[in-house]
């Protein structure tokens, strides 16, 4: 007789693969018409003054939390680290991807958590390697990815500081660097790149899914 547990197992076996399918473009932020409309609607609904709705790249996006949190905030630190190392030609990483196992073991040991390195090949990015960085609350790990065209992405993994709460995905713009960041448990994650927001958003979703299977 098929028990409830077996039914659930069958359901998961049959339908869980959908979770790993790439999300089709039509479900992403690539439809400026309705997203634009939605964001405009959100701005109006929030009763934001007309002055704030003047053309900006993404009107209506709450960026205030970043400004409030200041230079020590996760996205600001991640963006600075990105700027410093992503431009490095000869030494972008401390340990390169050829020694990935060692890299992950080493950074996991220093951060005191089991780190996972997302695979971004489907998004066109290969792991270059990683490095250890100082952070306000202990060591920080930075993983760097590179696209065939040469653009680079960095994933910054840092212990959550005391005054940071949990957040879902947030977006911040630090100069030319776009950052998606989130705080999950005791860890903050930030994906930075000089990449347009919809693309970075898509890649961030993939990173998030891989870190939270």
């Amino acid at each position: 007789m098929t028990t409830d547990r077996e039914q659930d197992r069958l359901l998961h076996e049959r339908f869980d693969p959908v979770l790993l399918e790439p999300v089709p473009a039509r479900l992403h932020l690539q439809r400026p018409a309705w997203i634009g409309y939605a964001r405009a609607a959100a701005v109006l609904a929030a009763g934001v003054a007309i002055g704030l709705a003047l053309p900006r790249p993404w009107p209506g996006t709450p960026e205030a939390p970043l400004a409030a949190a200041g230079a020590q905030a996760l996205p600001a630190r991640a963006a600075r680290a990105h700027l410093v190392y992503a431009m490095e030609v000869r030494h972008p990483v401390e340990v390169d991807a050829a020694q990935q196992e060692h890299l992950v073991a080493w950074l996991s040991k220093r951060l005191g958590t089991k780190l996972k390195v997302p695979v971004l090949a489907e998004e066109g990015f290969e792991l270059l390697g990683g490095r250890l960085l100082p952070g306000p609350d202990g060591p920080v790990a930075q993983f760097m990815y590179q696209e065939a065209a040469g653009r680079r992405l960095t994933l910054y993994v840092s212990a959550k500081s005391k005054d940071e709460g949990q957040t879902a995905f947030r977006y911040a713009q630090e100069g030319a660097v776009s950052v998606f960041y989130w705080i999950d448990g005791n860890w903050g994650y930030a994906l930075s790149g000089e990449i347009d927001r919809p693309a970075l958003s898509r890649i961030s979703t993939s990173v998030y899914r891989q870190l939270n299977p």
Partner: protein
Amino acid sequence: MDYEQVLPYIPNLRRYARALVGDRDSADDLVQDTLERAVRKFHLWRPGDLRAWLFSIMHNVFVNQLKARRISPTEEVDENLAAPGNPVSSTDLRDIERALAKLPAEQREVLLLVGLEEMSYEQVSRALGVPMGTVMSRVSRARDKLRRHLDGEPERANLKVVQ
């Protein structure tokens, strides 16, 4: 509320929709309609269980779609089509799909929210806007039907559950 907060839930919404409506395109239509509606209604969302909120939107969109096709969500599939005399020898993944498709939509919804999405009865009750007792009886009926189908037992269409 930011659209990015919704992104992590898209794969779950897609999985649920696929199990609910079957084919990939219709399922993604359902997800797309849900996301568009969620974006329009962002201002109504209050910090809380975002997942439950999204699934409740999907439920409403789904019910509207059924209405548009003039299918009642409580309409029973003709059980005689279930080929009762043809027992399933081994349970494979096609069987679970077939068995699901034979459930009335309202039973399929609760079963998937509980079995696949692993929501509590209370969360399902909030997401679908139906009393918890109703959720529990729908789950129990759905499980019973699913079990009989998977085990290859004939349907007992006139069986009444006395509570």
